C-alpha cells in the first residue's frame, strides 16, 4: 500500500514540477497563442526625450504602433514584412515620405511596437530640427556633448531610446531613432 502511494506521489511530482510558475508565461510550445519566449513588453517608466514627430504625430520607441500608424495614414511607398524564423513574431517596415518606421511583434502578432525610425532625406528632420546634410556641429549645438561616439556615429541615449547621427566628412548622413532593447 505504501509503495502504491509513494508511486503515485512520485508520478504527480514528476508531472507537476515547475507548476509554481504562471502557465501562460511558462508555456513552452512555440505556437502563435503561446510563444515560448513571450515576455511582457518592457515599457519605459518615463517617456524618452528622444522621439520622432511628423505632422503632429509623435512616435516613441516601444509604444504600441497601430493607433499611431493610423494617424500617420497609409504609407505611400508600402510596407515590408520580415517574419522571424518559425513564426516567432514579425518585423515590419512602413515606408513614408522621407522616413521609414520599423515595428516588431511578439509571437501572436496581435500588437506591434515601434523599435526604429530611420530618417531618409532632408525632407524631414528630428523633433529638434536636425536633418540629413547638416553639419556635425549643429548636432552638438542642438543635443550637447553628452553623446557616445562609435562607428562614426554620435549616439544620444535616454530611457529606452537612442538617437544616432552618422557623421561622414563632418556632415550628417544618417539619422535614426531606435529602441534600447532590455531597457525598462
Amino acid at each position, binding site marked *: 500500500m505504501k509503495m502504491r502511494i509513494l508511486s503515485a506521489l512520485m508520478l504527480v511530482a514528476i508531472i*507537476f514540477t*515547475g507548476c509554481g510558475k504562471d502557465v501562460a508565461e511558462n*508555456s*513552452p510550445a512555440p505556437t502563435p497563442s503561446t510563444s*515560448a519566449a513571450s515576455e511582457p513588453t518592457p515599457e519605459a517608466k518615463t517617456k524618452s526625450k528622444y522621439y520622432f514627430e511628423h505632422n503632429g504625430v509623435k512616435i516613441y520607441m516601444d509604444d504600441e504602433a497601430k493607433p499611431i500608424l493610423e494617424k500617420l495614414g497609409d504609407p505611400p511607398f508600402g510596407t515590408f514584412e520580415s517574419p522571424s524564423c518559425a513564426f516567432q513574431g514579425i518585423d515590419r517596415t512602413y515606408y513614408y515620405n522621407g522616413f521609414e518606421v520599423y515595428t516588431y511583434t511578439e509571437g501572436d502578432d496581435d500588437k506591434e511596437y515601434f523599435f526604429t525610425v530611420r530618417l531618409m532625406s532632408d525632407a524631414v528632420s528630428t523633433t529638434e530640427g536636425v536633418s540629413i546634410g547638416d553639419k556635425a556641429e549643429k548636432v552638438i549645438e542642438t543635443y550637447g556633448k553628452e553623446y557616445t561616439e562609435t*562607428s562614426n556615429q554620435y549616439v544620444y541615449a535616454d530611457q529606452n531610446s537612442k538617437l544616432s547621427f552618422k557623421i561622414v566628412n563632418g556632415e550628417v548622413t544618417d539619422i535614426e531613432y531606435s529602441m534600447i532593447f532590455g531597457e525598462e
Partner: protein
Amino acid sequence: MKKKKIISIVIVILVITSIAVLLQKLLMPKYMTQIVEGALIKEYYYEKLKDHDVMFIGDCEVYENFSPITLWEEYGITSYIRGGAQQLVWHSYYLLEDTLKYEKPDVVVFSVLAMMYNEPQREAYNRMNIDGLPLSLTKINAARASMLPEEDLITYVFPLLRYHSRWSELSSEDYRYWLRRDQISHNGYLMRVDVKPAGRLPTPRLLDDYRFGETAYKYLDKITELCKKNGIELVLIKAPSLYPHWYEEWDQQMVDYAEKNGLLYINMLDDIDKIGLDFEMDTYDAGLHLNLSGAEKASRYFGNILKSRFNIPDKRNDEKLKAIWQEKADYYYKMEQEQYRELEEYGYLLKFNMKRNEENKIKP
C-alpha cells in the same frame, strides 16, 4: 520476501518511467502541421545511411536555400542540412559535435549570418535546436551554452518538466503524432514552392558596433578547430538572401577570418547574376529566403564549387546510394506536386500559414 520487494520496486520504477516517457512524448510539441522547422533537428536521426560528403550547419539560410536533392542529381554529392530556426553559432557547434559521432563528412558548410548574434535570443529557438538532440553530454553542453537566465538545465534533460503545462493545450496533432513522425524535410531542406517577389527592402539600420561578438567568434573558432581536428574542410557561406542586410563590415570580417584560418568563404550575394537568381520568381517571402526554384539554382551553383574545389567524387553510379537517393527524390517531387496542389486549392501552403488556417478554419 526481500527478493519480492526488490522486484516490486523495480516494477514500480519501470512503470513510472514508462508513464513519464509516454507523457513526455505526448506533451512535447510535435512540429508536424505548424512551425515545422522545429522538427528538423530530430529528423536527422531517422536517416538510414548517415554518411554524407557535405554537412551544412546554420540557420534558415541553409535549410531554406540549398537542396541536397539537387546536389545529388546534378553532381552526385551526398549532403545533409543540420539547420534549425535561428540556429546560433553555439547551436551549430554542438550540432556538429553530435553529428561527428555518427559520420565524418568531407566538407562542413557553415552559414555565417548567425555571427550577428552574440547571445541567446529566445527559448523557443533553443528548444527547436536542442530538444531534438539525443541525451548526451553534447546536448547538456549545448543547453548550457544556449540557455537564457530564466531557463533550467534540468528541463533539457527531462523536457517533461518544461512541457507539462501543455496538457491544457493538447491538440489533435499531439495525439496523431504521439508515437510517430512524418518526414518534414528533404535531408534537412525545407521545401516551399510559393512565390512572393522581392520589392523595396528596408534601409539597413545603423549599428553601434559592426564587430561580431566574442562569443560568436569563440564558437566559430571551435567549429574551425573541430573540423581541423577531424580533417574536414570548413566552408563559410553567406547565402543569397537579401534580408537581413549583410553589412560590408561583416563581410570583411569573414573575409579576414577565412584568410587567417585558410578557409574558403563565399558570399553568394556577390554572385546573384551568376547563380541566375531572379528575385521576382525565386523567393517565397520577398527576398528573405529562396523558394524551391531559387534553392535549386543556388545548389547548382554551389555544388559546382564544392565539386571542383574539393574533388568530391560523383557517386551517382553507386547502386546502393542510387536506390536511397531515388527514394528521396521521389518524395521530393511528390511534395513539390502536393504543394502546387495546395497553392491551387487554397492559394497558400497550409503548413506555413497558421493564421490563414485559423481564419479559414482549416486544420492541416
